């Protein structure tokens, strides 16, 4: 209908100029962005090498890179990262499973919803670090504690999104199921679950980030193993190069985790044309 779908809104003369002169200025600012990163890294290196920052806790960037390399070769850092990942995955899977099952129940059984909704709303805003100390009393400081904390943190976003996903199912679909005389269980597995899946997965993506953060939080508070503990120990022990190495590895892991989940999500719900954010 409307032929001018290209209503372009531009603010200021910059955009108009680049439209007429092509891609050049955009390329320049993109290069400038990476130069900025490079400049900050060089400044880091120089400030440490030239002693501009007089501190034992300020290793040069190349020193940190060497610590990453050494940590991988000796297996110390690698082992610590792997143990954190393993705990996180356990907690994530348990928490997601609980969240989905409980969410489906609450969404489809009105009585449960009425008795649980405000309780969930009341417990949900409690910040995770606060539940670690009491749980230490019951579970000690080993893996059981951390997996439990992560599972608890993961459960709520998955639960909320599962309920939301089921609530938003098109009524026509459910009526279709009824006209074909599907049983409750069949409706659940063939209509409700797949329809709610995109929303559930969106909740799980949020939860994955949360699981990552929570694992590290739990390891920092109740230290016995893992990257969170490693960062605390290297800070106390004045091994800053190893501490920064661990932080850099965490950033890479965080990036990789999100990328991995988004690719899986695309494969599972590629049919879904709605925008989920």
């Amino acid at each position, binding site marked *: 209908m*409307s*032929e*001018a779908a290209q*209503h*372009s809104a531009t603010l200021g003369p910059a955009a*108009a100029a680049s*439209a*007429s002169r092509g891609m050049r200025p955009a390329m320049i600012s993109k290069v400038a962005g990476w130069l900025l990163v490079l400049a900050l890294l060089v400044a880091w290196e120089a400030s440490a090498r030239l002693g501009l920052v007089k501190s034992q806790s300020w290793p040069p960037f190349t020193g940190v890179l060497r610590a990453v390399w050494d940590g991988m070769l000796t297996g110390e850092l690698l082992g610590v990262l792997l143990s954190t990942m393993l705990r996180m995955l356990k907690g994530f899977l348990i928490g997601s499973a609980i969240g989905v099952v409980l969410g489906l129940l609450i969404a489809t059984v009105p009585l449960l919803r009425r008795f649980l909704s405000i309780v969930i709303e009341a417990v949900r805003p409690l910040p995770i670090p606060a539940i670690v100390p009491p749980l230490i009393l019951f579970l000690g400081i080993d893996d059981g504690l951390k997996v439990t904390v992560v599972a608890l943190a993961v459960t709520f976003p998955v639960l909320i999104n599962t309920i939301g996903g089921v609530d938003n199912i098109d009524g026509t679909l459910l009526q279709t199921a009824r006209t074909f005389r599907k049983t409750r269980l069949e409706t659940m597995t063939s209509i409700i679950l797949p329809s709610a899946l995109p929303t559930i997965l969106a909740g799980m993506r949020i939860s994955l980030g949360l699981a990552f953060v929570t694992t590290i939080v739990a390891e920092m508070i109740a230290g016995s193993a893992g990257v969170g503990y490693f960062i605390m120990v290297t800070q106390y022990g004045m091994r800053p190069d190893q501490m920064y190495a661990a932080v850099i590895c965490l950033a890479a892991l965080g990036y990789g985790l999100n990328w991995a989940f988004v690719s899986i999500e695309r494969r599972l719900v590629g049919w879904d044309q709605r925008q989920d954010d």
Partner: protein
Amino acid sequence: MTGQLNPAEAPIIEVLNLSHAFTARGHTVPVFQDISMSIRRGEFLSVLGPSGCGKSTLLQIIAGLLPSMSGRVLFEGQQVTGPPPEMVYLFQQYNKSLLPWRSVLGNVSFAMEGKTWTRSQRAERGMEYLRIVGLDDFADHYPWQLSGGMQQRVAIARALAAEPKVLLMDEPFSAVDALTRLELQTLVLKIWAQSGLTVVLVTHDVDEAVFMADRVAMLSRRPAVMDRIVETGLPRPRDAVVTRETPRFLELRHQLLDTLLHRDPVGADA
């Protein structure tokens, strides 16, 4: 410049050899080519063309909202490089052009901000313009509380409040129902007759183009060129029903539809 000419007779807008193209998947697709026309001061001009001929793009270039790829637009002798304060563009999508967080009066005041008016002057003048479009009772409402036709009337009041010399209207009535469209057409004609505005109306509706305008500029299919400009010569004031039944109206409608449908004239043989 030819200083001897009476300024009232010099064209208010001159469109000189405008061409436009867009790029899709690496290919450059021409939209319109070498469009030239003069718009007279105080006239009502319709720009008519099939979908995809770039008439909205043309209007946005005239308004200074889009940069021109080649060719120029002169407004009162000055080349247009950005939106001139005395030309106001009225969008088809009233639901997007009105600010949802402002009341009806607040939306009209929006056109007067950044100028010398005080807050109370803005409110007072805003109410006057709302009275002109018949919405003074709805000043405190929010846009989403009004019907589509009423929203477009708010947008018209807002455009008038900017006190432009030229009003550029981009298919302003195509998103409202048929009856409301007739009412809005009559309203705009009334405002135009009383204000001395120059109006350029872009439309793909032949009826509307002929009914409203002094002249109809007809664009061809893409890549569009200026097909012809015809004087309607219909008497004013125009009536939503009677004018549409006059022989001249029917004749013009017939001619222009033939051209739009891309066929030889039917029943008009020599």
